[in-house]
C-alpha cells in the first residue's frame, strides 16, 4: 500500500501532500471548500493512520502555504493541530507545522494562525517570506 497521500489543488481546496517515504508534508493553496469534511477527513485520517507505521526518530515538518481559509477550514485545521499536539505529547519525534506568510497583507492570516494555536494549544511556527 502506498504511504503517500496527494490531493490536487483546485479553486476551492489546497494541494495536500503527505509523503511518508520522502518525508514531505505540505498544504499549498487557498481553502474554501463548501464541505470541508469531504476534503480534509480522508487526508487527516490517512496522515494519523500512517503515523502509527512511521518508525522514525525524525521530526515531521509540515509546510503550510495557505493564503485564504474559510471559517470551516479554520475549524478543521484547529482539530488537526489538536491531534498533532496529542501525538507530540506521546512521541519523541515531533510534528512541526511551519506556516509561510506569502501575501502582502498578512495581518488577518497572522490572527488566524494565532487563534488556531491558542484554541488548540499547539504552536504553529510562522515563517515570513518576502514577496
Amino acid at each position, binding site marked *: 500500500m502506498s504511504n503517500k497521500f496527494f490531493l490536487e489543488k483546485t*479553486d*476551492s481546496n489546497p494541494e495536500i501532500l503527505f509523503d511518508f517515504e520522502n518525508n514531505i508534508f505540505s498544504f499549498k493553496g487557498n481553502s*474554501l*471548500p*463548501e*464541505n*470541508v*469534511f*469531504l476534503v480534509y477527513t480522508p487526508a487527516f485520517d490517512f496522515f494519523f493512520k500512517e503515523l502509527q507505521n512511521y518508525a522514525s526518530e525524525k521530526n515531521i515538518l509540515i509546510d503550510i502555504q495557505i493564503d*485564504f481559509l*474559510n*471559517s*470551516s477550514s*479554520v*475549524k*478543521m485545521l*484547529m482539530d488537526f493541530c489538536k491531534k498533532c499536539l496529542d501525538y507530540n505529547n506521546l512521541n519523541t519525534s515531533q510534528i512541526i507545522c511551519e506556516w509561510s506568510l506569502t501575501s*502582502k*497583507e498578512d*495581518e*488577518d492570516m497572522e490572527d488566524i494562525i494565532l*487563534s488556531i494555536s*491558542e*484554541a488548540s494549544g499547539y504552536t504553529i511556527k510562522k515563517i515570513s517570506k518576502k514577496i
Partner: protein
Amino acid sequence: MAIPLKDIVSFHQSMQSEDLVLVYEGEFNQEVTKSVLAMTERNFDSEGLDSGVKKKAYNIMVEVLQNICKHQFVDSEIQKNAIFLVGENEEDVFITSGNLIKNHAIAALTEKINLINSKDKEGLKELFKQLRLNSTISDVGGAGLGFVDMARKSENKIEFQFDEINADVSYFILLCRITKTTN
C-alpha cells in the same frame, strides 16, 4: 418572461443609484460561488479598491455565499429564489443576501446574531475561539462560525431582518458593511 427592452435603462439606473456592483438571483452552488467571487474580485480590482478592504470583502462573500449554498431550500409554492448583492459607495462596501428560512429556525438565528452584535472586537475574538473549540462540522460541512467571521471581518454590526411569507417560511435578509476607511 423577459424584461422589456425599454426597462433595461431604468434597471441599469436603479443599479447605479443603489451603488450595486453585482446582483445574482437563482440557484446557488459552489460553481456559482466561484464565478461570483471571480467577477466581484475583478470589479474591485478595476476600481482600485484597497487590498485590505478587498480581502475582507472576499472573506465575507465566501461565508455569505456558502451559507446560502448550505441552507437554501426550494418551496414550489413560494417560488422565491435566493439573491446575492454586492455594492460599493464612497464609504462602504456592502454585501447583502436574501434566502428562504423556515420560521422555526428564526428564533435561534436571531439569538445567535444578536449575541454576535453585542460583542466588541475582543469579545468577538473570544467568541470565535470558544465556538471553534466547541463546534463540530455539520452534515453539510459547516462549522457554524460564518456569522462570527463576517462580524469580525466587517468590523460593523450585522444587519438583518425576516420578512414573513406564510406560517412556515420567511425571507431572511442579511447585510454586512465594510467601512473603507477602517484600517
